[in-house]
């Protein structure tokens, strides 16, 4: 086994990322002392901007790989996906931490952040989101504790965690299912503000469903990046067999979307030539239909470039959808203008750099990725049927 010591290799790129993190920390401290107006371009027309729209909504959506993989591996016991299980958990945990940090940055009265635990505005969707995200992050930390105590030997604690694992795993799927949908329900109040191509009473379904099918795509993209970074072989067979799940879920998403638009009588708005309609068409054609076709065609799906490109489209597509809900769909009704300031961008970049650094540190020190056989030419076939 690779040594018990801690290690973190320093490269120039990593130094750059550390600098970006430090800049972001400094900007964040400035913001906490001098207020949001001091460094952001947020205004009364645009109370939510980059941090909520991108870091929170997309961070959480991209973390969807955690709960969809947990469902497949730990509930359905599809063992061939075990090699990606821990990496998915880790990405998810880090994604949630980013979301919590960006939420903390974004709230005006940050010293009051704990209030919703004691003052229950239970008729607010945000209340559900807040509780679920806090609890789920805690649960993921505990799930990660199981991995942590493999390296840091503490048998008593590991045993306790072992007993707790089944309820934790199940809660760890219920809670994200609830709040991924609630993140969509947040926008139900924006009836008459959010463009009808996105506003729907079904928006909670669209959010949770897309977060779920995003999961395998995210795992594919992230797995390929990790493999590239560490000179390993990507888990191509795992990626390929995941495409079927993603594809069928996306087909259902598309059908429900069409039915919903028809039912509300706004189908025609998709073709009215407005800015919103064009963005909607791009979302549907480039980021939903195109990946479905790429997944459906065997000669594309079986190639690494094919499955990675399609998955990348799915990932970008979900980000695109969230951006459309937060910005494109709201622009016409709220008026005013908003473009993030340089500091908002720098803090965002710093947070994602911190995520990348944390990921690198953790996979280099804990057992996250499957062990690789050092005889590269011949893949050993595990009893569970995957190429390690």
């Amino acid at each position: 086994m690779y040594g018990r010591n801690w290690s973190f290799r320093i490269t120039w790129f990593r130094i750059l990322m550390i600098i970006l993190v430090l800049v972001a920390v400094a900007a964040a401290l400035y913001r906490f002392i001098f207020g949001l107006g001091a460094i952001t371009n947020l205004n009364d027309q645009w109370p939510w901007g980059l941090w909520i729209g991108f870091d929170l909504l997309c961070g959480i959506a991209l973390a969807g790989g955690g709960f969809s993989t947990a469902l497949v591996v730990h509930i359905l016991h599809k063992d061939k996906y075990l090699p990606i299980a821990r990496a998915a958990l880790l990405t998810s945990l880090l994604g949630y931490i980013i979301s919590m940090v960006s939420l903390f940055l974004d709230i005006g009265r940050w010293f009051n952040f704990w209030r919703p635990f004691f003052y229950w505005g239970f008729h607010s969707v945000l209340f559900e989101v807040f509780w679920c995200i806090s609890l789920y992050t805690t649960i993921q930390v505990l799930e990660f504790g199981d991995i942590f105590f493999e390296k840091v030997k503490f048998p008593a604690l590991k045993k306790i965690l072992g007993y707790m694992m089944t309820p934790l795993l199940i809660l760890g799927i219920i809670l994200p299912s609830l709040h991924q949908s609630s993140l969509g329900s947040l926008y139900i109040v924006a009836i008459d503000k959010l463009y009808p191509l996105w506003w729907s009473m079904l928006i909670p379904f669209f959010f949770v469903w897309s977060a779920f099918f995003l999961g395998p795509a995210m795992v594919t993209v992230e797995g390929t990046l990790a493999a590239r970074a560490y000179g390993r072989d990507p888990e191509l067979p795992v990626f390929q067999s995941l495409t079927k799940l993603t594809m069928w879920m996306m087909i259902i998403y598309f059908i429900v979307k069409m039915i919903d638009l028809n039912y509300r009588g706004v189908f025609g708005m998709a073709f009215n030539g407005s800015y919103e309609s064009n963005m909607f068409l791009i979302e549907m054609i480039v980021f939903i239909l195109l990946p479905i076709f790429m997944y459906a065609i065997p000669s594309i799906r079986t190639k690494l470039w094919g499955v990675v490109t399609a998955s990348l489209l799915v990932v970008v597509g979900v980000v695109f959808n969230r951006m459309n809900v937060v910005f494109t769909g709201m622009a016409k009704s709220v008026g005013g203008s908003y473009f993030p300031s340089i500091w908002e961008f720098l803090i965002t970049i710093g947070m994602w750099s911190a995520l990348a650094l944390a990921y690198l540190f953790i996979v280099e020190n804990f057992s996250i990725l499957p062990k690789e056989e050092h005889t590269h030419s011949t893949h050993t076939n595990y009893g569970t049927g995957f190429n390690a």
Partner: protein
Amino acid sequence: MSKGVLVDVTRCIDCKSCMVACKVWNDLPSRKTEFSNDLDAGQLNSDTYTVVNNCISEKGDEVIWRFVKRQCMHCKEPACESACFTHSFVKTKEGAVIYKPTVLDQDYCVGCRYCMIACPFSVPTFQWEKAFPFVEKCTFCYERTQQGLKTACSQACPTETLKFGDREELLAEAWQRINSNPKYIKHVYGEKEYGGTSWMYISDVPFEQLGFKTNVFNRPVTEKSIPSLTWQVLKWTPYIFVGWGALLTAMRAYTKRRAEVHNEEEMYGPVDPKE
């Protein structure tokens, strides 16, 4: 009795006494304004709970001006209240939608600004320049109305454009005025919009020409209260929690019997960063 204000747009002369009275009563600082040709008072902000906007419209060949006071509408079922996850905003029995009056005085607010997203009239504003900002908007002069006084603005109004009273009585009076004079549009804005509001408007010029939200995306604004829409979804939460949890537990138990046992410590390992 829930209070309300009836605004008769035909009577307003744009004197802006209401704006001044509001600033004085609430002790709000002035803000530097920019000169504009039509003397329009601009938009609401965290130091300005009410503004009078100017609207030019045409009736036949005649160009006519109308002046519309804007402030929080004090919805009967406020979207902002339902959106607040610490329940900082409340609808009082007197009709005001305000920060919950507490001993600690307003200190529940987290500053998340979801109320600003939720408000269909985009009324709440934020103290962006402050380190520890609050959400600011018209308070319906809660302290005054508790003492049996009118709101500062309706007290100051010299033309009886603003009439303070019981909402239901004002609504009856609004329809009585509309029905006794053909100049009025046959609509009381605020009677039904978003489940009804405490502030209501009557006018002789169609409301959409006065900048009121009547049609959005080519359809009339909803008459359902926004909290009722959210609740339609939120009420399922406990059932989903229990049902989905039971289903997952059952599936895990069912598939576990067939699953092989893995030693996870053998399967995964730390990555050796390549040179």
